[in-house]
């Protein structure tokens, strides 16, 4: 098995998996019917992407594991998503803030992944990019709406951005598998996306009338499987059926 490629795929897919799961929690509980539908739709897109990635990862693993085994039967330390996406739905501003800070990265990442020498990854990126462009438009619009709206919404949006900001730097860290994949022209050199990301995110925040956080203290660890305490509970739900009823088909 090409374990670098396998780990590289998991690193990408786990972000979509965990964020999709977070959004799934909100289905039926949104502030309006329209935002409810949009949130569910984004979740649906992300899980669709997850399936493509994990089906490919299962093929590479070649040991009989399925997409569901990979998605639902790993231990907490084996999930490689960034800390940002596992943060809880504290309120709508946090949900939107988390979405925007991830979407802005995700979009620029997929643009580069389209150029991958790995044809499967480039095809998945090509398909996903249309969806993620919509996600980014939705989340950046809401950041602006909440920033510009009322004093209350501005304060809430600012608080969410301030709290989530410390998880953004990790998006641009490279794992060992990442480095090998970049060398082989399969992977995206995320370090190169960083400046554009912060420029763009700052532009949106300023347009929203929000202050760009100046904190230089960041958290990391997700890519190495060292998560926040929130992830365990999320996985308990995600894995419940597969753990309780092992080796069955659904």
């Amino acid at each position, binding site marked *: 098995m090409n374990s670098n490629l396998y780990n590289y795929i998991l690193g990408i897919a786990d972000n979509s998996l965990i964020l999709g*799961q977070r959004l*799934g*929690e909100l*289905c*039926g*509980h*949104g*502030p*309006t*019917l*329209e*935002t*409810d*539908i949009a949130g*569910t*739709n984004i*979740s*649906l897109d992300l*899980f*669709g992407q*997850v*399936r493509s990635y*994990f089906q490919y990862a299962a093929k590479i693993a070649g040991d009989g594991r399925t*997409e*569901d085994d990979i*998605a*639902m039967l790993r231990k907490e330390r084996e999930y490689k998503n960034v800390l940002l996406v596992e943060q809880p739905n504290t*309120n*709508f501003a946090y949900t939107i803030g988390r979405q925007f800070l991830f979407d802005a990265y995700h979009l620029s990442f997929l643009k580069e992944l389209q150029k991958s020498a790995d044809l499967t990854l480039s095809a998945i990126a090509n398909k996903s990019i249309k969806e993620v462009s919509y996600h980014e438009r939705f989340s950046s619009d809401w950041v*602006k*709406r*909440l920033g*510009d*709206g*009322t004093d*209350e*919404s501005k304060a*809430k949006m600012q608080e969410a951005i301030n709290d989530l900001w410390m998880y953004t730097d990790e998006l641009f860290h490279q794992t060992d598998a990442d480095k090998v994949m970049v060398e082989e022209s399969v992977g995206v050199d995320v370090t190169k996306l960083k400046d554009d990301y912060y420029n763009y995110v700052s532009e949106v925040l300023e347009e929203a009338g929000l202050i760009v956080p100046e904190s230089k203290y960041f958290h990391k660890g997700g890519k190495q499987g060292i998560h926040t305490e929130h992830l365990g509970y*999320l996985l308990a*739900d*995600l894995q*419940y*059926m*597969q753990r309780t*009823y092992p080796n*069955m*088909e*659904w």
Partner: protein
Amino acid sequence: MSEEQIKSLERHFNERIANDEKIEPKDWMPEKYRKTHIRQISQHAHSEIVGMLPEGNWITRAPSLRRKVALLAKVQDEAGHGLYLYSACETLGVSRDELYEQLHTGKAKYSSIFNYPALTWADMGAIGWLVDGAAIINQVPLCNTSYGPYARAMIRVCKEESFHQRQGFEIMLKLCNGTPEQKEMAQDALNRWWWPSLMMLGPTDDKSVHTEQSMKWKLKRKTNDELRQQFIDQTVPQADVLGLTVPDKDLKWNEERQSYDFGEIDWEEFWQVVKGHGPMNKERMKARVGAWERGEWVREAAMAHAEKKQKRKEKQAV
């Protein structure tokens, strides 16, 4: 308007309905027609929205990625149904906020079936198979109902519902072809959802207060008892295919009627749930009202932003 004029309008209105013409929002309609339609369409819209909760409850725990995606899509469809049913209702001169208000204060009803809890994964199968199955039987005739916006909304709703019903049956089939534990889960779900599904078709004809008028307006094409019989006749053979036992000891094929005889429905339970004392009534309302209240600052912000944006645009134009 004189009494004479109103009578003439009414005569013309009734003729149009009898000729299968559609009534459109701008057409004259009797006040009672308008009110009845607001009641029924909004009740239907509320059912879609409250109906998202028992299934939404299983999205995070769906057993496979394929099932998770299908369930998300299904619940999203329900939100979509809610959206266009509320829109259809708004054409009768009532706002969505007013309709929500009626739901949240308990003035408006929604389908009682959603006041039962979804306890296991098999409930996702049973809800699709039985609840959507019963809903389709109720709703297909509405594709030809007299009020245009409602009829058009229902055409789309019915297409998606029949897909959901097949999807639910397929979940059950997989369980029934699986391990003994899975089959037991499926049987347990059928046991719990069977009777509430029969109740979904409404009280018996002699107890149904709206039937006669609704028949005239084509809001109803068959009586509750006819629909219930149709549902049972259609569903029992499907339970046989699954190898499951319908939890009714009096269920028996009647050769003469070419239909199933079935046992007595517990109408006391039905009225208890309708009156707000079912297992999940309070939780469902708490979830809806909670989402609405938590979202208030978001809706206010969206309004404020839209106004500011408009003003900025006007200023620029000057």
